[in-house]
Structure formats: C-alpha cells, structure tokens
C-alpha cells in the first residue's frame, strides 16, 4: 500500500526530497537562505513562468504530440504585447475608466486580444498542419519553431522591444511580482484595525487558477477524455467516432492560449520583448511535463504533476544558485534529473521485470 502511494505521488516525493536536500546542504555550505519565505516566493514565481505554458504542453503530450515551437511562440506573444505597449496612444492612467483612461483601456484590451490570438494562431497553425498532413508533430513544430522566431524578429526589428515605463499599466507589473516581492495582486485587508497582507505572489494565483481550469478540463469534460483516448490509441478513438483531427487542432490551439498567457508573464517579468529569448524555453517546458509524469508516447500526464515538475526545476536552479554552483553544472544536474525521472517513470509503469533482468545480466558479464 505504502509502495503504491509512493509510486502514485512519485513526482511530489521527488520534489520534497530535492527541497530537503538543498535545505540541508545550503544550511551547511551556504547562507541558510534556501528555506526563507523570500526564496520560496522567488521559486514559486519562476516556476509559474514554466508551469503556465507547460499546462498547454501537458495537454499536447497527453494527446500523443509535442510542441517544440512553444518557446519561440511564447516570446512572440510577449513581443506582440511589448510592441503594442510601445505604441500606446497615451501613457497608462491610474484608473481603468474615465475620459482620458478609456482610450488606453481599449488599446490595452485590444493588445491582450491580439496577444491571445497570436498564441492561439501559432497553435492553430501547428494543429492544422499536423492534422492535415499527418506529419509527426516533432517535425512540424520543429519547423514552426523557427518560423515563429523569424516572425518575432521581423516584428521587433531584430532587436529587443522596450516599452516606455509610463506606458505599462500597474496591474501588468503586478502580474509577475518577480524580484519586487512587495507587490501583490490581492491588496492587504484591514481586519479589526489590523492589516493582514496575503503575501501570495500574483503569478502563483494565476498559475493555480489556470491549473484548476486545465485539470477540470482534462478530467471532467468530453474533450479531455477524448484527448486521453487519442493519445492512448488514435485508431481506437477513430473507431469510437471521435473526430481526432478536429480534437488535435483544438488541443494545439488551446495550448497556444496557455503559451500566450505565459508570454504575458514573461513580459511582466523582463519588461521587454525579445523574440530570441524563447529559444530553449520549449525544452524547459517539456521537461516540466515529463518530470511530472507525462509520457511522450501519449495517453498519460497530469496538470498537478506538471506543476510539481516546474517546481522541481526551479528548486534545483535556486538551490544550485544559493550554493554558488556555476550555471554550467546546474544544466548538467537538471539534465541528469530529467533522465532519472523518465527511467523511474518507466519502472513505475512497465513491469519491473526488465530492471531485475538488467541487473542480473550485468552480474553475469562481470
């Protein structure tokens, strides 16, 4: 029973193990900051940057696909937002409404719609090509990855787009608290003369809400169950009357929306739009899904798992940072963890038989 529990919550146990390890190691060799609330806030913040687009990736991976273009599509969305902010008709007012605020509010609304459509459009293009041509998603999105990078660079004139500070509305800054840990989406509440501050980073709130929505979508809607069916066996899904091409197009488009929201967080974090920032981000996103128990052969994956996966990556990065381990080594460590996670996951779902056989074969040759 205990073993079953251990298997089921594998990623969570891995996260706890990693947290404990760094907490102890950092206590001895660092400055004991790993366990501080501040560091936790920073970690959760940066995990959100990975987790939000990774929710979309989870759905794609459950459907049996993959999206290599998620990284560049994400920065493309961020760049669209940056360009829009740069060209805003007026500076950002303090309120949403009012005579002079209305123009900006409308412009901002338009910017957000455009950003979302950019993400959804990127996904729709992926999904349409995959459904129509039956070319494997890996190749299709390998192509669109470069295309989206190119489009972004045309848009940004091959440089980084900075919007003037006064053009950025306050709420957008608040979306991602980042290093300024004092700003939160939920204002402090005055209770019996005492001010109670909910010091939950806004990015965390956004992530949790999105996770809840994605989780319910995958678990309790016809669409979600159909995605599992397609990922598990497309021909069986077809036999059951599920429209696989249409569902896949919806999967990629939906993932594009998550990517767009990821782009918003990205902008709120770095306060500029640089299309080439996105290169390599897709691998981080995929890694979060895989660490969370997603199977690249489809039919398996979970939103909660992906959230844990994103936390694992950021915990390692933060721990290594505090221990002053150079970045280069951090990459190696994260790479090893990913491979170990997949091997453990295979053990968990395949018969453990092969593992014992592997060991016995080794003892024989040695």
């Amino acid at each position: 029973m205990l073993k079953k529990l251990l298997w089921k919550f594998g990623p969570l146990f891995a996260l706890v193990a990693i947290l404990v390890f760094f907490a102890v190691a950092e206590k001895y060799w660092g400055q004991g900051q790993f366990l501080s609330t501040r560091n936790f806030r920073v970690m959760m913040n940066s995990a959100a940057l990975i987790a939000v687009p990774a929710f979309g990736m989870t759905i794609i991976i459950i459907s049996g696909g993959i999206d290599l273009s998620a990284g560049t599509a994400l920065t493309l969305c961020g760049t669209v937002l940056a360009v829009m902010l740069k060209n805003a008709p007026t500076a950002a007012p303090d309120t949403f409404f009012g005579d002079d605020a209305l123009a900006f509010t409308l412009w901002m609304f338009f910017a957000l719609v455009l950003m979302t459509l950019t993400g959804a459009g990127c996904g729709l293009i992926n999904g349409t090509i995959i459904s129509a041509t039956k070319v494997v998603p890996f190749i299709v999105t390998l192509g669109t990855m470069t295309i989206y990078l190119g489009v972004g660079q045309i848009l940004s004139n091959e440089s980084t787009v900075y919007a003037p500070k006064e053009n950025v509305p306050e709420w957008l800054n608040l979306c991602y608290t980042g290093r300024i840990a004092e700003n939160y989406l939920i204002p402090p509440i005055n209770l019996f003369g005492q001010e109670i501050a909910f010091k939950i980073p806004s990015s965390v709130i956004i992530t949790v809400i999105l996770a809840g929505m994605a989780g319910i979508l995958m678990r309790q809607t016809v669409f979600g169950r159909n995605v599992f069916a397609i990922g598990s066996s497309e021909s069986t899904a077809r036999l059951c009357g599920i429209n696989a091409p249409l569902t896949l197009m919806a999967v990629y488009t939906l993932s594009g929306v998550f990517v767009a929201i990821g782009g918003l967080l990205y902008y709120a974090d770095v306060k500029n739009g640089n299309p080439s920032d996105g290169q390599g981000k897709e691998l981080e996103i995929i890694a979060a899904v895989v660490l969370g128990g997603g199977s690249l052969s489809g039919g398996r994956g979970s939103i909660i798992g992906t959230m844990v996966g994103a936390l694992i990556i950021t915990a390692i990065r933060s721990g290594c940072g505090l221990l002053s381990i150079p970045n280069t080594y951090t990459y190696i460590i994260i790479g090893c963890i990913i491979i170990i996670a997949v091997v453990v996951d295979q053990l968990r779902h395949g018969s453990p038989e092969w593992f014992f056989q592997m060991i016995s074969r080794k003892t024989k040759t040695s």
Partner: protein
Amino acid sequence: MQGICKRFGPTIALDQVSLNVNAGEVLALIGENGAGKSTLLKVLSGAHRADRGQISIGGKPYQPRGPLDARGAGVAMIYQELNLAPDLSVEDNILLGQAGTGKGLLFRKQQRQKIEEALEAVGLGSLSPTAIVGQQSIATQQLVEVARALISNAKIILFDEPTSSLPQKDVAQLFEIIDRLKKNNIGIVYISHFLEEVRTVADGYSVLRDGRSVGSGRMENVSDSEIISLMVGRDVSELYPNIPHDLGDVRLKIKSMRGQHSPHPIDLSIRAGEIFGIAGLVGSGRTELVRTLFGLDHLSGGQIELDGTRIKGSVKARMRAGLGMLSEDRKREGLAQELPIIENTTMGSLKRYLKFTLLDLDKRDNSAIELMKEVEVKAHSGYQNVAELSGGNQQKVAIARILHQNAKVLIMDEPTKGIDVGTKAEIYRMMGKLAAQGKTILFISSYLPELLSVCDRIGVMARGRLREIREAADWTEDSIMSVATSSDR
C-alpha cells in the same frame, strides 16, 4: 520441468507446473487464454524467472538468466509476434545475438555456409541470405526465425501459436518443417488453440488450466472433447448454444455500396434479429466491406439505409444512427490498451453523462461497471488497464462498448480471434441473446464451423464481391470454400 511456480504480485500465474519434452517429440501445450501457457514458455526461454522449481535439459540443471542464456543452453523460442529486425537482411537477422560472431566484428563469409545450410533445413534453400526480411511473407519470416534457432544448435524449440497469422498453405509447410526438426532429434513445444492442428502435429499433450497442469498424455489416447473439458474444467457440450431468435423487418439495407478499391458494388439487406455471417478468405474484401459500412473507409458510391433512413457521413453519425463495430485488430484498433476498462467502455459516447457541461464521473463509472458485469469481464476492478486482461476478457470489454453505444446493428469482425474455447462459447451465447433482443449482427469470421453454427444466413465474399448468400443450413464448409476460392467473374 518440475514444480514450476511463478507469481506476479498477488496473482499466481504458475502453480506447480510440470512438463516433459522428449527429444524428437512434439508436445502440444494446450490451455485457455490466461491459463499460464505463455508465462510457462517465458520461464523456459528465460524471459521470466521461476520463483520455485527446477528445469533440466538432457539431465543438466538449467536456470536461464535471460534469453541469451537460454539460447546458449539450446532453448529457442518462436514468438507469436515475430522477433525479427525487418530492415535487416536474412543473414544479419540469423546472426543477431549469436555466439561466435567474432569479437564485435562480423565475419559474414565464414558464417555464410552455415546460414545456407540452416535455410536449406527449413525449406528456404532458394531464399538469398542478403534479402531484406521485411519484404518476405510472414510464413518466410517465421521460417527465418526457425533457421536462427537451428544455427544456435537449439535442442528445444518453443512455438507460441505459430499458425495464428499464417494462410492455410503455409501451415502445411510449417508442419512439414516441424516434422523434419523432429527427425533431427529436436524437442518441440507447440502452443495452439486449434485442436485439429494440434492433432496433426503433436505426439503428446499437456493441458494447463489456471496455472496448473491438469492432464497430459499421448495424443492418440484422447478425444477432442476430453481435451476441451480439461481446458475449460467443465463440459462444453454447448459450444454453440442454440438461442432462439425471431427475424423482424428489414433493418439494414445496402444498395450497390462500393469502396475505393474494394468492395465492388454490394447489395444486401439484413433483418432485425438476424445473425448474418460473412465468409471469405483474408483479402476477399470482408473487412473492407464492414469498414466502408461503418465509415472508416471511404464510400465511393451506393447507399446505406437503416430502418428506412439513409445513413452517411462520419463514424460518429453512423454510430448515432445505430451502427456499432468491433475491430478485428483488438490490440491496436479495438481497444486503447493503456487505458482502464471503464474508459474503454465509455469512449466516444460520454455525452450522456454531462451535467452542467461537466462529466458525472461516478455515473459513468457505475454504468460501465454494470456493463462489465453483464458481459462477465473478469477483472480486479473497472480501473484496471485493458492491457492486463486476457484476450477473451479484452474482447468482452470491446463488446461492452458496443452495448454502451446502444447499437442496433453490431458489426463483429473476427470477434473470436485468439480467444479460448470457453470465452468463445460465451460470445456465441451473447450474440444469440442480442439477436433475440432484436439486434442485427454482422458476423465476419475465417473459422467456418462457428459461422455455420451461429448464423442464420451466410454470404461468401471473393475478390471484393459478395458472391452468394444462402441460409446457413444450405452451406457446408466445402461449398463455402469452393465459392470463396472461385475466380469466375
């Protein structure tokens, strides 16, 4: 083999199984699906390890640590699904994993003669060793595997249902080769569901049931019905239960329906409460006929009417109209192997569980479990993955799904393929019951005795055409075969 035991978690797959194979003898290993035959063979071939018990070969104790080890000791296994690298040449496949292929280097020339001898021995003297395996027929590939076994000086060769994917004429050839191997003093273990086949090829038999040996002896001293009752543990006097069902009005009407290549225009009308059989050789267009009917293959012309209304469009539209289909390829198409039973049963028809845009999962699970009980799926729970079930139970899940879809016309393509006798009888009974409820059943099968016993009418297909339809009573196996093999236009 003496007292072999093997457990997988709480399930005891093998319990005190003993087996004796003499040199130059063919032993038939018989048992229902899930009786432990394949596990036993896997223990023998080193893929699994026995928890208890001893195995000896030629008096020497034998405890394989892995497939390579087993091969070294002279045990070779020919799996149901062939174990060849399709893109490699015949000789490379034969040399794969062989001892003495040099220290990391291949000396093809030295091996050439041995390979040609081995190919000769399995009747493939004319096959070039450099031919690509994937381009050969299944029968030839199988023989290449046998040749691979020979070259490793196998003393015992294990065949796991070798004929399940072979056409009739290749079966005869395989039996000839097995006879030849026998004469070379090789011991053979032969697993099969087909009793007729076992009777032609085997000298001795051993029956497994629920992981135990329940009987063994010489083939000539036992009758088919004795073997069947050993396998099932009870008398299957009623393999083909006769459930009375009345024919109603015409339900399905097919008017000159054509597919892209096959079938050629077909006219057919089937009534409610009728079991209509379709016979024909593999490639005669049987499967294409039903796939076109169900909308999985492109319809090039003609009309389909169900209860007087024309049906067309997507699979989904046809399902809604009342068609349901069981795929012949249970593993790949019929079921999503890595999903639970419940998920497989309700797949594609979840709309009825919607409650304010969300699914009522409890309601879904309950009705799926209800259906599981109805078709008597044996499983720990509805949340078990389909892959863990035996073939017969998997097929029942697939049937449960068509029932869940409330289909009026059930298209069943080879529903008893690779299924044990006991479950076959259950499926026939289910078909009879469904017909009695007024459902129409389209029953496609290559196994003529079941068609003749279960169906009301049978149509025979050849070369994409529906040649002849008669009452089942007016057909015999011979007359069906002669129509199925006819070439006249």
